[in-house]
């Protein structure tokens, strides 16, 4: 079990009103699954993603990631967990401007105290996503799909337990979307755990399991036959 979430609640206070963004969520994800988390805006899917990504802490409930109880950790410990166990892929890529692809990929290792040849690892990660010939290119010299591949390489760098993608194809055209989704499928086939937060059913089609949220609760959770 790579993720185990029990009775997770997250409340926000806006003025005098309390919003229950997550209202008691239970969710378990096995190693090697490829899960789509879906829901309309306001369903709580972003809040769940933030907590799963250790960017936010629940108001109550427990979260166990790769054998560690993450709920209750302080900011510094969470930073370390994000560095070691989670690889993020964002909708708008979030590459550092004016910085070559290789240096962008290397970034997480700046904050890690893992030994080894950092450059060689970054090179391998870029090769893995098929950008061996674009290492010295800056983001403004890359297409949208290539940028997202660089971002995926960066996410893979620390060999994380969980690949967490937030609308990874939101800024891409149909053809590039398929390329990126095939990359995620390949990574899943290699045994990686992938969680994709999306509101597009076409993206969810690629996954082995679809979890739908509505009003801070899980509305449905079913295994599906993925598109290949």
């Amino acid at each position, binding site marked *: 079990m790579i993720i185990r979430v029990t009775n997770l609640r997250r409340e926000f206070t806006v003025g005098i009103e309390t919003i229950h963004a997550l209202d008691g969520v239970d969710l378990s994800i096995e190693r090697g699954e490829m899960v789509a988390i879906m829901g309309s805006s306001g369903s709580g899917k972003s809040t769940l993603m*933030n907590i799963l*990504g250790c*960017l*936010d802490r629940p108001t109550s409930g427990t979260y166990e990631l790769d054998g560690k109880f993450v709920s209750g950790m302080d*900011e*510094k410990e969470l*930073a*370390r967990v*994000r*560095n*070691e166990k989670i690889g*993020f892929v*964002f909708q708008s890529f*979030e590459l*550092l401007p*004016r910085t070559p692809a290789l240096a962008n990929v290397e*970034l*997480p290792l*700046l*904050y*890690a*105290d893992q030994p080894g040849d950092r450059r060689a690892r970054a090179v391998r990660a870029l090769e893995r996503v098929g950008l061996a010939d674009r290492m010295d290119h800056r983001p403004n010299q890359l297409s949208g799909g290539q940028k997202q591949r660089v971002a995926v390489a*960066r996410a893979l760098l*620390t060999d994380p337990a969980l690949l967490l993608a937030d609308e990874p194809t939101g800024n891409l055209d149909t053809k590039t979307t398929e390329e990126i989704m095939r990359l995620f499928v390949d990574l899943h086939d290699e045994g990686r755990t992938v969680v994709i937060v999306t509101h597009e059913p076409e993206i969810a089609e690629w996954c082995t399991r679809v979890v739908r949220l509505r009003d801070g609760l899980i509305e449905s959770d079913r295994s599906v036959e993925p598109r290949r």
Partner: protein
Amino acid sequence: MNPSPRFIFQTILLAIRQIRAHKLRSFLTTLGIMIGVASVSTVIAALTGLKDQVLSEFESFGASKMFIFPDQPDRAGQNRYPWREIKLKERELEGLVENCPSFEQFSPNTDFRATVIHGRKEVPNINVVGIWPTWHDIENRPVIMGRPFVEADEIDAKPVAIVNDDAITELELPPDPVGSIIMVKGRRFLIVGVIETNRTGMMSFQPEQTEIWVPFSTARRMQSPWSFFYVTGQVKSPDLVDEATAEVRYVMRSMRQLGPDDPDTFRIEAIDQYIEQFGKLATGITAIAAGIVAISLLVGGIGIMNIMLVSVSERTREIGLRKAVGATPSAIMLQFLLEAVVLSLLGGLIGLVLGQGLAFLLTIPEQGLQSARIPSWAVALAVAFSAGTGVIFGFFPAMKAARLDPIEALRHE
């Protein structure tokens, strides 16, 4: 977090890359620090040069010289001493010579203004100085032609004179004026020697000027009875200045029969007092310069803070990303703090280079401060203070960056 050297190195590289990416902006930001450090290091360089020059001036003047002046003591509300009690007398001179063992020698000095005539050439208002033969040694001014004054000149109050080489041109004397006759205040004087004009040092700005020396006793006879003289003394060695002062004071007080409560009716000055006074002045100027640097660093620091706040705001998403991939708040803090420090250090170093250039310009002219230089303590201080400015004024923006919520930061437009 205990940052590894590698992390710090990478972060400094990052800071340099940021500064290079915004060259004009970074330059304008550090301009305040640059100008502040440049101007203050120039002032300190000039002051250092001036100090060296003045001290060597005093040295050549003679660190073992002392002066005794008649002096009206400062006694509020009480009667002033009559002048005849204040002024130095010839018999007191004898007493000083006999009773002050720390002294090598003394010479009285007195002067008056007179019209000097040579042949048809008449020059008014020339300074005529009366001295003892010992004066040549005390002032280190030997004759270059003829002979110096001797004891017999003094004892017999002979009408003999020594002139400087400027007098030869001004009075139209022959190239070797020894043996020529000049008229001083209507009296005939035989020129017996020539002294080189003193053109070195602080007094060198004077135009060409005739100087005439006559024996002290001769000068006294040509002066009004109210005129006064002062005494120059040469102490046996510079370390004896304190003892010499005490001796003179004791001898003078006992000769003048001053009671224990009476103030001194004379004044003793030593060269080292002037050195001390100059040192105080230099310290004062240094303190003012330090004040200026403090103000300019404050102004420069505010510029740094401003630009760092802009930078944090522009790079909010980057900060969000860095946090998402594992940067702790202290890592972000260090990143922005180092950027501010590198920026202000750069300003300080450029300022030092500019200051060094200006200090070099000061040494170029012939009358310039030959030894103007930025002392190493000032270099160290400038570097330390500009780094400190970066830390102090970079702290708040860095704190702001470190505290950003990664979710909010990644959503920032």
